């Protein structure tokens, strides 16, 4: 399983590369190249536990991949190798952070999400816009224009993720005040890439995760409950709860949730896919007099601010918190926390993407520009409009504990792992230590690890290979000078 060819994901994308995204594609055909597969629907039913646990939101367009080493070098969990001239993801290690998508110059790494046409699958649809959406548009001065444009696009209703974020923040504040048994600092569990990173690389810190579902999951449950209450005649399968997402990692988190049995999100649309469609609708709505634009917005500054790094901590209304963004910075913070160097903090907000969710791979706008726009938009908004109520407790609390996934260990048996580690260190000492990547592994240490796992050979190192050839040449030279005894002359 270690070096599998990412077959499930490639299979999903297969035809997606050339606009398999049906329906409303048109102008965005090229951009929605990877809109393949469905995140909800069939995924939860078929496939089984194993297949689901291997699903990732990143796939490879092998036509475009040149087998360069840019992505293997950038991957924070060393989850990519170049094999047979193409990048190949070790699924067990991928945390869906999107770094490989960002760094690929050939656009061969593609995020997976749903095509806009998926909307037609449902009789009644609710859009769940991430607050990052509001920062994508220049000259926008009223968030209701975006929310109404979602309805004009075809959604029957809108439930802002920012509303759920405010409820999560409210409950977090009371948990931190009332439940002194929770370890400090608590770590936000909202970013799925961070949660997966902790599961695979920092299992020691799992107890620090805030045991609350992410705002998108809370929003989905509340939106569904609202839709079912308003339309009791509709069957569950007729209702489409659709997340408008800045982030590909959410696709994995929704398809294979770790803190609840089943996500109520039925489809995930990329902000960048729906963006051009919204632009047209927004133009029409902006023509209306302000009082004629229906008021949908029902979140305050707190919820909307969750889109950027520091938003979640600001909503805690206390100072002893830290917010870090960008996967490398996140790793540094977790390393320090593991060494008990951050014990004096109460809360840590971590976002895998630079600048927070506005930096997600499915967005259009530069994250800093988007964040600045949101700061302007929220300026005259009320602080918070949504509060936690006791009956929401079940909706917010994790349905099951988040478990570690020890993909790093060399063997299940400790003695065997110890032996392999011996061998690994010996191999590392014999390698040049240049981390050149020519063997297809990101570092010499990673190659040594692949060798002891049986997934590579020492001679995959071009410097080792050169040594072998040199030895071979010198042996041949010796042989060439060899004179059989009958012909040897006395010295």
């Amino acid at each position, binding site marked *: 399983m270690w070096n599998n060819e990412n077959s499930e994901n490639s299979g999903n994308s297969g035809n997606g590369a050339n606009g398999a995204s049906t329906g409303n594609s048109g102008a965005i055909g090229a951009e929605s190249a990877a809109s393949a597969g469905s995140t909800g629907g069939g995924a939860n039913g078929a496939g089984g536990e194993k297949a689901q646990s291997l699903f990732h939101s990143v796939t490879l367009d092998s036509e475009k991949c040149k087998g360069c080493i840019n992505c293997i070098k950038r991957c924070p969990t060393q989850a990519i190798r170049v094999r047979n001239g193409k990048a190949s993801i070790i699924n067990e290690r991928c945390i869906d952070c999107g770094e490989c998508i960002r760094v690929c110059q050939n656009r061969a790494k593609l995020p997976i999400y749903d095509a806009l046409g998926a909307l037609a699958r449902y009789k009644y649809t609710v859009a769940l816009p991430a607050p990052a959406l509001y920062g994508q548009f220049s000259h926008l001065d009223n968030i209701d224009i975006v929310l109404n444009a979602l309805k004009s696009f075809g959604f029957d209703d809108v439930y802002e993720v920012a509303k759920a974020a405010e409820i999560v923040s409210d409950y977090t504040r009371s948990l931190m005040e009332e439940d002194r048994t929770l370890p400090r600092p608590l770590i936000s569990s909202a970013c799925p890439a961070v949660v997966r990173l902790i599961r695979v*690389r920092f*299992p*020691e810190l*799992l107890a620090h995760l805030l045991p609350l579902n992410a705002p998108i999951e809370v929003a989905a449950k509340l939106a569904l409950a609202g839709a079912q209450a308003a339309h009791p005649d509709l069957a569950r399968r007729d209702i489409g709860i659709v997340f408008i997402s800045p982030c590909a990692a959410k696709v994995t988190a929704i398809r294979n949730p770790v803190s609840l049995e089943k996500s109520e999100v039925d489809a995930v649309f990329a902000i960048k896919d729906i963006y051009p469609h919204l632009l047209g609708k927004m133009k029409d709505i902006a023509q209306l007099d302000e009082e004629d634009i229906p008021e949908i917005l029902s979140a305050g500054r707190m919820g909307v601010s969750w889109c950027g790094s520091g938003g979640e901590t600001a909503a805690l209304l206390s100072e002893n918190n830290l917010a870090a963004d960008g996967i490398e910075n996140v790793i540094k913070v977790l*390393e*320090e926390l*593991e*060494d*008990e*160097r951050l014990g004096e903090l109460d809360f840590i907000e971590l976002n895998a993407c630079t600048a927070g969710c506005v930096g997600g791979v499915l967005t259009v706008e530069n994250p800093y520009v988007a964040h600045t726009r949101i700061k302007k938009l929220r300026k005259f908004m009320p602080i918070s409009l949504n509060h936690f109520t006791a009956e929401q407790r079940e909706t917010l609390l994790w349905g099951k504990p988040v478990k*570690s996934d*020890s993909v*790093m*260990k*060399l*063997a*299940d048996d*400790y*003695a065997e*792992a*110890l*032996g392999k*580690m*011996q061998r*690994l*260190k010996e191999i590392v000492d014999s390698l040049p230590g240049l981390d050149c990547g020519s063997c297809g592994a990101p570092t010499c240490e990673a190659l040594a*690890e692949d060798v002891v796992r049986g997934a590579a050979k020492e001679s995959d190192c071009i410097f080792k290979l050169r040594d072998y050839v040199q030895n071979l040449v010198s042996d041949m030279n010796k042989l060439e000078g060899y004179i059989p005894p009958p012909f040897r002359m006395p010295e």
Partner: protein
Amino acid sequence: MQKNLRLHYDISGDDYTRAGEASAQLKQVLRQLGLSSSIIRKVAIAMYEGEINMVIHANGGTIDVEIDSACISLVLRDTGPGISEIDLAMKEGYSTASENVRSMGFGAGMGLPNMRKHSDYMKLESTPGVGTTVHMKISIGEE
């Protein structure tokens, strides 16, 4: 009979920004060995405190790690000024760190006590003017 796994780390003395690198590397090895979170955490904290001590007081040193089927042994050696009053140094909160070091958030006097707390065995040998050697053992046994 299986050989023990031996690892060696050189700790440079003048660079606070690199303190913690050795313990981060050792953590990676322990994860690859599949050891439990609680053991990894104990080793990481004990080693990090030792590393910091070497950087602050002793202008660096070396850390030798030996891992066998039952335990992880750490030997931290430096040729620094040594510790004259070991009993006092082991007290929580006792610190000889300079104001400069404290201003960086180190030197709270918890280093040695934390090392003792997180290891199953600890022995400190020190000769003023010669250096300090700390032996620590953390057992891997079933929890």
